[in-house]
């Protein structure tokens, strides 16, 4: 898989979140906290992480997932692993 830019990862993540929890893509901006701002529960986060693994080809283990609090955290995590 080709390395995605930060913008592409953000757009891809926004698509996943729209699909899984029905939050409009425009709401998914880097500073948003999954729990406090987007109201996403832990079971949905599991689904989002699996979908992100499929989309970006990087593994997000459970012990890493719990530290990914914001949209930006995931974008940076994916970007770092892709490089």
């Amino acid at each position, binding site marked *: 898989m080709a390395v995605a830019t930060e913008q592409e990862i953000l757009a891809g993540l926004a698509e996943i979140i729209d699909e899984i929890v029905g939050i409009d893509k425009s709401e998914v901006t880097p500073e948003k906290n999954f729990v406090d701002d987007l109201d996403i529960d832990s*079971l949905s986060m599991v689904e989002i992480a699996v979908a992100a693994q499929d989309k970006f080809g990087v593994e997000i283990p459970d012990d890493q997932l719990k530290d990914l609090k914001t949209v930006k955290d995931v974008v940076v995590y994916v970007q770092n692993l892709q490089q």
Partner: protein
Amino acid sequence: MSTTQTKVVVTGLGATTPLGGDVPSTWSALLAGESGVRMLDWENVDRLPVRFAAQLAVEPSESIPKAQLRRLDRCQAIALIAAREAWRDAGFAPPVKRKGGKDAAAETGVEGGFQVDGDRLGVVVSSGIGGLHTALNSYDTFLEKGWQRVTPFTVPMLMPNGSSGHIGIEFGATAGSHALVSACASSAEAVGYAIDMIRAGRADVVICGGTEACIHPLQMASFGVMRALSTRNDEPQRASRPYDKNRDGFVLGEGAAVMILESEEHARARGARVHAIAAGCGYSADAYDIVLPDPSGAGQAKAMRRALADAGLQPEDIVHVNAHATSTPAGDIAELTSIKAALGEEAARKLCITATKSMTGHLLGGAGALESIFTILALREGVVPAVANLEDLDDEADLDIVRGEPRKLPDGPAAALNNSFGFGGHNVSVAFQRAV
């Protein structure tokens, strides 16, 4: 019944069924004698002995967004749709937005209305089977893609109390949330339990009913192999024919029915419209066989007698019975025998009987609540729907079965029974009284 007992009334009705996406459309289709039965358009349907069922008239995706549907089993989605209709019908205010909730006013489409105290609000919504589609789909996903790809909502989607939980969350019901599971008697038990919750003072308002959505090849095969289903594959809409000489089994249906029960005092204080009085409920168990009803009908008769006693009614008060009558050769007649045993020959001959599964199919865990709604509407509107497909009346069906045209009921005080019997030997009879 003690004279000081709290009276319970029905103030809201909701349903989504094979005949319509709500109560008004379902009721008018029922009076028109329409059938909700359709051919199944599945791949490999030829492998099944029965290739038709009573599927929903309106898909849940028409009113629930895709992302929310992903975490609801089909039976839970339709339970929520029926609960929202009942809630609106009762004139209650939209629930306040809480964690994970969407914009409630937009969902329920109501502004204003009476604000219900969550601590005085209960839920009793049942399913006989639960999330069968979820269980099987998740297992397929596991086999094909591994455990990590199984939806993390599998457990809450397949558990039979899931609908009760989701409804309680949406409406903020904290008095208690329950799910009684007793096969095809489940949602009749739910109505009975709701009456008891209010009488016991545990709640002022209870959202109660049932839901089922298990039209799946496995279920068709499982009921088929029991020889319980009609195999009239060439005439599916004429397959469900209670009391007809040529009946050969039931037709599987899906749907949800939910009602709002309320203490009379609470309903009066807020000026609510009352559909009917939920007068009482009677239960019994056959303790005879896991699937066959006791052929003597003794257990069914006990449930009806206990319903009358619980409601403080006499046999001659009953003008109508919405029978369990699933269109099986033995069951339909056995129930008539037990009606006679319960009420006495004289009273049994004066009332009229209908079997609405002839049009809706058998909603299993949704049947008791849906047929309770039909019983309530019959009393309120003064008209009983006719049994469909009743062409050649069984010689042993010697009571007054409504056929041909709907039957008008006399004005004035009246009461009716709704019978539901389930695998496991569960017998439930719910008594309703006209609000006058």
